[in-house]
C-alpha cells in the first residue's frame, strides 16, 4: 500500500532534483567562488539579486523595460504580418517568385545589425527607427519560410481541393496556410530571437532609455551588480519569449505533432 503511494512522490522529487540540481549547484559554486575573492566584475549572486530588485522593480520598469518590450512586440508583429502576406503572394505566384528570389536571398544574407547605421541615417533616432530596425531584420525569416511553405504544399492536396472547387480565400484559409504553417512557425521562431537581439542593439546605439541602453549605461558607470541584473533580466525575457512561442506553437501545430507521432509509430 505505502509503496504505491510513495512512488509518484519519489518520481516528482526526482524530476525536481534533475531540473533544479544543476542550477542550484552552479549558484552555490558561484556564491562560494565570489565570497572569498573581492572580484570586481563578478559580484556574489546575493548582491546581484538585491540589485535586480532595486533596479527593475521601480520606475525603470515603466521607463525602460515596458517601452523596450513594446517596440519588440510592435516590430515582431509587423514583421509577421508583412512576412506572411507578402510570402503567400510570392509563394503562390510563380513569376513573382522567380523575379524576387535572388533579391530576397541577398536581403536575408545581410546581417540585420548593419541596417542599424543605415536606418539611423535615413530615419534619424527615434521609436520609428528602432521599430524599423527590428522589422528590417525579422521580416526575412518569416517571409522566406512562408514562400517555401506555400510552395511546398502537397500537390495531391491542392489538386484535390481544386477539383472540389475550393478556391481563392477559402483555399488559402483551409488548405494553403495550414499546410505551410509548420514552416511559417519555424520562421517566426527565428524572427523572435533576431528581434530580441535587434531590440537590444538598437538601444545600445542610439537611445536614452530602454533595456539595451540601461545595461550599457551601467557598464560604463561601473555599476557592475546593476549591469549583471540587466543581463539576468534580458535572459529572463529571452526565456519568457521562448516559452510563449512554445505554447503558441503547440496550439497552432498540435495536429502536425500528432501526425508525426502517428507516422513514427
Amino acid at each position, binding site marked *: 500500500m505505502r509503496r504505491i503511494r510513495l512512488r509518484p512522490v519519489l518520481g516528482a522529487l526526482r524530476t525536481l532534483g*534533475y*531540473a*533544479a*540540481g*544543476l*542550477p542550484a549547484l*552552479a549558484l552555490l559554486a558561484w556564491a562560494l567562488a565570489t565570497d572569498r575573492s573581492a572580484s570586481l*566584475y563578478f559580484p556574489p549572486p546575493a548582491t546581484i539579486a538585491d540589485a535586480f530588485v532595486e533596479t527593475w522593480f521601480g520606475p525603470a520598469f515603466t521607463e525602460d523595460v515596458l517601452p523596450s518590450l513594446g517596440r519588440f512586440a510592435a516590430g515582431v508583429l509587423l514583421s509577421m504580418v508583412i512576412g506572411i502576406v507578402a510570402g503567400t503572394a510570392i509563394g503562390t505566384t510563380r*513569376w513573382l517568385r*522567380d*523575379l*524576387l*528570389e*535572388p*533579391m530576397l*536571398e*541577398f*536581403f*536575408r*544574407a*545581410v*546581417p*540585420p*545589425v*548593419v*541596417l*542599424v*547605421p*543605415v536606418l*539611423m*541615417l*535615413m530615419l534619424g533616432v527615434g521609436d520609428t527607427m528602432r521599430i524599423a530596425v527590428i522589422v528590417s531584420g525579422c521580416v526575412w525569416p518569416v517571409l522566406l519560410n512562408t514562400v517555401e511553405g506555400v510552395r511546398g504544399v502537397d500537390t495531391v492536396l491542392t489538386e484535390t481541393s481544386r477539383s472540389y472547387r475550393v478556391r481563392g480565400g477559402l483555399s488559402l484559409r483551409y488548405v494553403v496556410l495550414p499546410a505551410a504553417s509548420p514552416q511559417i512557425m519555424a520562421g517566426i521562431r527565428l524572427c523572435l*530571437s533576431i528581434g*530580441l*537581439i535587434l531590440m*537590444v*542593439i538598437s538601444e*545600445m*546605439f542610439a537611445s536614452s532609455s530602454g533595456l*539595451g541602453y540601461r*545595461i*550599457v549605461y*551601467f*557598464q560604463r558607470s561601473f555599476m*557592475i551588480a546593476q*549591469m*549583471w541584473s*540587466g*543581463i539576468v533580466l*534580458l*535572459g529572463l525575457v*529571452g*526565456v519568457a*519569449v*521562448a516559452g510563449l512561442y512554445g505554447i503558441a506553437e503547440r496550439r497552432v501545430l498540435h495536429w502536425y505533432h500528432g501526425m508525426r507521432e502517428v507516422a513514427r509509430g
Partner: protein
Amino acid sequence: MTARVLGLLGILGFLVTWEVAALSGAVSRTYLPTASTTLLRLGRELTTPDFWVTLGDTVITWSAGLGIAVVAAIALGTVVGLVPFLQKATHSSVEFLRPIPSVAIIPLAVLVAGLSREAALMVVVYAPFWQVFVQVLHGVADVDPVAQDTARSYGLGRLDRLRHLVLPTALPYVITGFRLAASVALVLTITAELVIGNPGLGRQIELYRSAPDAPGLYALVLVTGGLGIVVNLATRMVERRLLRWHPSVRREEAL
C-alpha cells in the same frame, strides 16, 4: 532558364528603383546615395588594401568563433548525449541558457576583455555553441535501437560503435547545426565589431556612419550581404560533400 532571366530582371529592377528613389530627393542625398554612386564606391573599395585587411579581420574573428563553438559543442554534446544521467541533469539549464540573447553579454565581455577581439569572441561563440550543441543531442539520441543492439551483439566496442553508429547518425544533425551556426556567427561577428569596436567590417561601417560617408556605408552593407551569401553557399557545399552518402543528398542529385 526563364527563372534566371526574371531573377536578373529583379535585381535590375531593385537597382533602378533605388536610383530613382535617391534621385527624387525624397530622402536627402547625403543619407541615401544613388545606386550608381554606391556601386562605383564599392568598386573603388575593392581595390584598396585597407578594405581587404578589414575583411580579413572579420573573417578571422568569424572562423575562430565558429571553430571554438563547433568543437566545444560537439565534444560536450556527444558526452552529454550519450550519458542519460547528464542529459536529464543538464536539460533545464540548457533550456534556460539557450534563449538568452548573446548581445546581452556584450557589456560583460567588454568589462572582462576590453575592446578587443577576445571580447568579440565571447559574444560570437555563445549562440552558435547552443545551436550545434542541441543538434548534437538530437543526433546522438536518434541512433536506431535495432542497429544499436545489432552492433552490440556483434561485439562492437564502445569506440567502434561511436565511429560506425553514432557518428553517421548524428552527422546530418551536426551539419544542419553547423550551417545555422555559421550564419549566426557571421551576424554576431559583425554585431560585435559594430558595438564593441574591434577591427573589422562592422567597425568600418560605424566609422563611415559617423563620418558621415554614406556611399562607403552602403557599399560595405552590400559587402556584408555578399559575405553572407558566400558563407551560405560554402556551408551548403560542405554539407553536400560530407553527406554524399546520405539519402537526402543522394535523392537531390538523382532529380
